[in-house]
């Protein structure tokens, strides 16, 4: 382990990698701070630009954006009641009331510090878990990976509470999109309608750029122009770290929820935040303050969401299974750079894995230092008029799609998905199931095929302990959902909080 760690540090300390890390982390904060441009948009646009870079350089650049956007996203959530990224939605509940009380600086500082604590705890967990992962990952054969991907699909559908049916149909649409083109084994055409441009299939990056970037550009260009004017009082940003120290229990448990929910594919930040926020409220001495400017609520929300990215790398690196849209994009980056995540990665390239972990650690340190000195400047970035932002995303979206393979057809497809993405966003329907359907659908197809020669009867499929465990986990979560549905039938529930979260998931 130590050898791999030292080798990993050696890989990381090249000027190109460090520069990419710095640009990624600072860029991520800036992107996160602008409402309307999430990390998904930025990663989708930058993906093709990283193709020509060294694997570790390209990956650290995108990892920087992935890991730091939520820090920036807390700023507009607290100051103008608009989350910079979707997962900062819960931060508005307590952050904005604090701003209204004249405690904006305290809230921002607290949010940064809680985010930092959450991220560091998560990365430490990831590093400590690595030897165990290296041990367990080889136990995952084709059928286990198939079942884990299936569990991911089931969870991503069920996690969209209140929108399960829509999430189901969109996930299935994603699976279908992945099958379009030539079947890689039988070489027969599937849903090509004799159109040559469909024979090569539908590229994931084209769909991602359409659904995330172009749809956002269209939306911003059509909607009324606005330019918020956030203000923040002067003062030190370091006080938050001390204050988080007085909420150790909430920060620790919330980070734990973040780690746990990040590891489980398809669940992610929203569930982690719900669990930690509910826990914090239930165990608080002042539960009545939650939603009205409670520092504990703010800590719970920010520590939980920032603990997820590092933990979400666990199923991605160990099994090659992405748990949400951003890790799905990261997976395509890995593939492009010829790094195949999965059990072999831990056995053959453990130093590379450690380099990624240390990169995550460094990026969090870089971000917190950057934020201590730049918060005032970031409030100016939030002021960018929304239509101007839409214009820039459209221009950037072109680079993303066109530079893939200079295909007009790809651009037309991306524009089509842009319109679809806009409709889904307006209807408050989730976009993520389409992406995960495409990625996990592809994994399921390949793994099911490769596992079948060794399976004589359906029971053989779950004869191995991990396969059986995953199978029963799938049955359990479906059963749990059905039980919840029937319980909700008898008890009228107030879903206003859930409603707000789903609404902002689309931004």
């Amino acid at each position, binding site marked *: 382990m130590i050898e791999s760690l030292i080798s990993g540090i050696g890989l990381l300390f090249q000027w190109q990698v460090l520069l990419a890390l710095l640009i990624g982390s600072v860029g991520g904060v800036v992107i996160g701070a602008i409402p309307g441009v999430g990390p998904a948009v930025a990663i989708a646009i930058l993906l093709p*630009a990283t193709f020509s870079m060294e694997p570790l350089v390209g990956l650290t650049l995108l990892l920087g954006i992935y890991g730091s956007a939520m820090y920036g996203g807390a700023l507009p959530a607290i100051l103008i009641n608009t989350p910079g990224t979707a997962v900062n939605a819960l931060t508005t509940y307590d952050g904005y009331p604090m701003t209204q009380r004249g405690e904006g600086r305290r809230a921002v500082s607290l949010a940064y510090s809680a985010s930092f604590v959450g991220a560091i705890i998560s990365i430490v967990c990831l590093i400590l878990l690595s030897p165990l992962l290296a041990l367990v990952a080889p136990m995952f054969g084709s059928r286990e990976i198939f079942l884990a991907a299936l569990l991911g699909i089931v969870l991503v559908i069920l996690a969209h509470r209140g929108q399960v049916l829509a999430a189901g149909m969109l996930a299935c649409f994603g699976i279908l999109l992945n099958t379009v083109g030539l*079947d890689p084994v039988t070489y027969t055409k599937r*849903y090509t309608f004799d159109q040559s441009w469909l024979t090569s299939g539908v590229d994931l990056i084209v769909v991602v750029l359409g659904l995330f970037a172009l749809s956002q550009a269209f939306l911003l260009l059509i909607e009324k122009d606005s330019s918020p004017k956030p203000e923040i009082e002067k003062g030190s940003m370091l006080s938050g770290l001390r204050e988080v120290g007085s909420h150790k229990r909430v920060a620790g448990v919330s980070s734990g929820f973040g780690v746990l929910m990040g590891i489980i594919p398809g669940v992610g930040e929203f569930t982690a935040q719900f669990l930690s926020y509910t826990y914090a409220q239930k165990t608080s001495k002042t539960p009545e303050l939650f939603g009205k400017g409670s520092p504990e609520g703010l800590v719970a929300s920010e520590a939980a969401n920032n603990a997820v990215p590092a933990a979400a790398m666990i199923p991605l690196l160990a099994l090659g299974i992405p748990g949400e849209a951003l890790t799905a994009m990261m997976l395509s980056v890995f593939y492009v750079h010829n790094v195949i995540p999965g059990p072999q990665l831990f056995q053959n390239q453990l130093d590379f894995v450690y380099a990624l972990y240390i990169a995550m650690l460094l990026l969090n340190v870089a971000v917190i230092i950057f934020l201590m000195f730049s918060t005032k400047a970031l409030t100016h970035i939030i002021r960018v008029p929304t239509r*101007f932002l*839409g214009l820039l995303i459209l221009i950037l979206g072109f680079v993303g799609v066109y530079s893939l393979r200079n295909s007009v057809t790809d651009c037309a497809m991306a*524009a089509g998905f*842009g319109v679809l993405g806009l409709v889904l966003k307006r*209807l*408050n329907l989730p976009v993520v199931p389409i992406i995960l*359907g495409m990625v996990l659908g592809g994994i399921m197809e390949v793994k099911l095929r490769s596992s079948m020669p060794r399976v004589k009867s359906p029971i053989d499929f779950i004869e191995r302990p991990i396969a059986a465990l995953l199978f029963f986990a799938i049955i359990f979560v479906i059963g749990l959902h059905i039980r919840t549905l029937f319980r909700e039938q008898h008890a009228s529930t107030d879903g206003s909080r859930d409603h707000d979260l789903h609404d902002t998931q689309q931004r």
Partner: protein
Amino acid sequence: MQQDRMATLQVLFKRYRRPGDIVFALAFLIFSIWLLTQLSAQTTWKPNGKLVAQASFWPMIAVGGMVFFASLHTVGSLLSRRILGRWKEVGFWFRSVEYALWFMAYVMLVPILGYLFVTLLMCLLLALRAGYRSRKMLMASVVGGFLVVVIFKSLLQVKVPGGQVYEYLPTALRSFMLTFF
């Protein structure tokens, strides 16, 4: 009794809706059913082959799932109370087509007039279309476009071909433009 059952179903299918929901639900259902009718024509089924090894297995699962979920989604929409503003919302969706066309015009013009010129032109025109008239905003949009070209094409060297008009430039300038813009 009938009303009770309806209420129960409404709770079962309760979700957070927006105007125009039923239009999308029906359109998606019709699209899914149409895809299902195309299944045998658009995929191949080999006799005597294993079910999961069939090329049509995953499309069948996907389209079957789409029809299943879209049917229930549509039932949910039909049973929910109507939200006013349905057609206004559909009109909003169609407004996005205009910007999709702007995007396609951009795509078509780049290989002819070159990345730099078309980007600057597009930024200026889109800024005007977005309602900006001040010199500051128009300049900002052009500078923004220029920076995008410099960062992506000149520095990161992404694959965007030179414009056909570059052929008419003097040799030295042409190779410079082809490499950097």
